[in-house]
């Protein structure tokens, strides 16, 4: 059964296989362990997750071809003669052949774990501030250390994750165990030497951006200039400089003078991947506004306004609620953007404001259940969506631990499930199908049997390869493609 093509695989049939699952197997899920955000870094070597307990766990992909790089480096250093140059070529090619081992892909293992946010209490309002990590965004790597931004409802923090694998020994002023030496006892001087030690990964908070949001932060987005970023709450969007924590610029403010007139809130915001002056924000009324920061300091007037006209035949009391956009993501190319509302995913061309260019139904069978979903609050679930590296496929989550992928070129779609049952190493994922009515075929699941507590809200796609991370409550599933 053909899967959905991602990456550069034009026309190649491939299937998704289980790779790993992280997290406890217990039926009783501790609320603090529920994963609330998943994000690959720019290279895809690091995968970060945040949870409701305020913790961040970073996984690193193991380097399975590391030895090839070492060998090549040695050869490049060693040879200076033309004869050696020819040899270099042959040795290199044989060494490189070992790289393509389809059955052995780099696994993600825990790299670092730290407590990013703690629960706080707002004494002024007598309200708790949850420590739940709403979003994590990586910064592009500029040196050996890795930086990421993590945010809860009120505070954004810049974390530096660095490795330490050497230790200095032979200090003059202190002993090996750290005690200060008596200066009078020092008779000779020595130069401390660096000795290798077990790898230690340290996470330290470098900046804390606080007290700028009255309402709950729902998005952060790093600008393409790598110097600034935006943070959006329900009514306002602020622009920060990564180096400056005591000031931020308010660039969008939709708070009405009279709060009684409030009918719309900001639900998501993102910077354009290439144009550092452009960003978009989505609303609870299903609209997207694109703003250009060059036009004015306060971007209350949008440059572009994206809204699809409502279909009058499907109007109901729930129309507005299901049109509320829960996530907006630019394509890597910067030419398109994707929005997720309750029942569908839409791809918009930035040059066309009056309707999306593509619409994909995620779980249309829920349309007849909207009243129940309103009653149990599921209708307010905020699903995210993501692009693959080449923008040819998109992915989003659903209920019953199902997630959906759509191939934009072939128009094929597939429903897969993140479950322990199909968690054997390299087991191929079987496509799932929801039966909407009439006779239920074998292997199909009926709408009424769906588990609405098992929702996949957060998914992430590796920036260049066909590796996906899917958060199912407290478990993180990693799936990879298997090329036939």
């Amino acid at each position, binding site marked *: 059964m053909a899967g959905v093509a991602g990456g550069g695989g034009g026309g190649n049939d491939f299937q998704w296989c289980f790779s790993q699952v992280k997290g406890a197997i217990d039926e009783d899920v501790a*609320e603090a362990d529920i994963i609330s955000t998943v994000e690959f870094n720019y290279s895809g070597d690091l995968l970060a997750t945040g949870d409701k307990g305020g913790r961040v766990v970073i996984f690193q992909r193991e380097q399975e071809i590391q030895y090839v790089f070492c060998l090549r480096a040695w050869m490049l250093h060693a040879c200076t003669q033309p004869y050696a140059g020819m040899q270099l070529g042959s040795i290199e090619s044989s060494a490189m052949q070992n790289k393509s081992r389809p059955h052995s892909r780099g696994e993600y293992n825990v790299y670092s774990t730290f407590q990013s946010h703690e629960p706080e209490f707002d*004494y002024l309002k*007598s309200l*708790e501030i949850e420590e739940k990590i709403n979003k994590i965004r990586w910064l592009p790597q500029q040196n050996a250390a890795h930086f990421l931004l993590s945010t809860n409802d009120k505070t954004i923090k810049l974390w530096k994750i660095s490795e330490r694998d050497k230790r200095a020994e032979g200090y003059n002023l202190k002993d090996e165990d750290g005690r200060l030496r008596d200066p009078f006892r020092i008779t000779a001087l020595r130069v401390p030497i660096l000795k290798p030690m077990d790898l230690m990964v340290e996470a330290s908070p470098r900046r804390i951006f606080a007290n700028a949001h009255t309402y709950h932060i729902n998005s952060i987005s790093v600008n393409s200039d790598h110097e600034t970023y935006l943070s959006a709450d329900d009514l306002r969007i602020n622009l920060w400089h990564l180096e400056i924590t005591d000031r931020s610029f308010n660039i969008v403010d939709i708070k009405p003078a009279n709060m009684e007139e*409030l009918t719309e809130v900001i639900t998501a915001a993102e910077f354009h991947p290439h144009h550092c002056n452009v960003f978009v924000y989505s609303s609870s009324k299903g609209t997207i506004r694109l703003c250009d920061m060059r036009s004015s300091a306060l971007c209350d007037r949008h440059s572009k306004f994206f809204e699809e006209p409502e279909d009058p035949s*499907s109007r109901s009391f729930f129309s*507005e609620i299901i049109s509320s956009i829960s996530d907006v993501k630019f394509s890597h190319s910067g030419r398109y953007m994707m929005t997720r509302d309750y029942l569908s995913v839409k791809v918009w061309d930035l040059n066309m404001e009056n309707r999306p260019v593509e619409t994909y139904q995620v779980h249309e069978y829920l349309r007849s259940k909207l009243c129940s979903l309103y009653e149990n609050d599921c209708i307010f679930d905020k699903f995210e969506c993501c692009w693959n590296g080449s923008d040819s496929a998109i992915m989003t989550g659903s209920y019953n631990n199902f997630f959906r992928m759509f191939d934009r070129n072939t128009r094929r779609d597939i429903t897969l499930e993140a479950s322990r049952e199909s968690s054997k190493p390299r087991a191929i994922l079987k496509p799932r199908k929801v039966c909407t009515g009439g006779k239920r075929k074998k292997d199909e699941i009926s709408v*009424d049997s769906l588990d609405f507590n098992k929702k996949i809200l957060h998914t992430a796609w590796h920036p260049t390869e066909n590796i996906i991370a899917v958060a199912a409550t407290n478990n993180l599933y990693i799936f990879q493609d298997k090329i036939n």
Partner: protein
Amino acid sequence: MGEEEGLRQAQLLDTMFVRGLKRKCFDGEEDIEGTLAGFKAIPSYNLQRQSLLDMSLVKLQLCHMLVEPNLCRSVLIANTVRQIQEEMTQDGTWQMINTQNAGHASLDRLVSTDILCRSSREQTEAKHSPGYSTFPKDFEETQSQDSSEIMSAVSSGQAPRNLQSNMWEMESPQENRGNFQKSLDQIFETLENKSPNSVEDLFSEVDSSYYDLDTMLTGMMSNTKMGHCDVLETFPSQTTTNSNSNCKSDLNELDHIVEILVES
């Protein structure tokens, strides 16, 4: 609402009324045959709409828990309420509600957000259970006004602040919170809910905000957070009541309402 969808929703709401929401709405599909057989008339669109309105108002009331409410959710629910009320005013069904008022006095208590969300000033001024009974009077006055003002009329005849402002305004939350707690306390009393944990402490009638802070810190920090749904779910697990209820007379009707709205 499309007819098909309207009927479907009716079926779902149907099970609510008949079964008292003991099973989840979306599980009720299988039971529809059985329930419809024993149910003579399919509820009217008006009844569905009214149920949706009631459900929405309850959701709004339970927004204010210990963590700041989700503004997006509140706005969406409020918009739904407004939409229903707009439609109802166009239909002229506001008047109908008055006639049903006698048998649903306790329903007013539960769903009248003006009682719950008004500030103390206004509460002393306004009469008790104004609820829907003020609608006919206000209806003519407000017919020509826009929707936000209709909302004001619904919430409270004279009070300047309406449902929404009390929800959104975090600027003077202490006042809101205190009043809200008081009002919620009335409801909780009548529902005979005394769960042994912090809920009781939280909604006690002690006025001093300092004490509230204290109970918040001691009572809540160690307990699991009560989401809005959790509170509903703790209702069935009550013990004996030991406070005087002001509304014992409404208790039976209130029980009925709670049964409908709460999954036991």
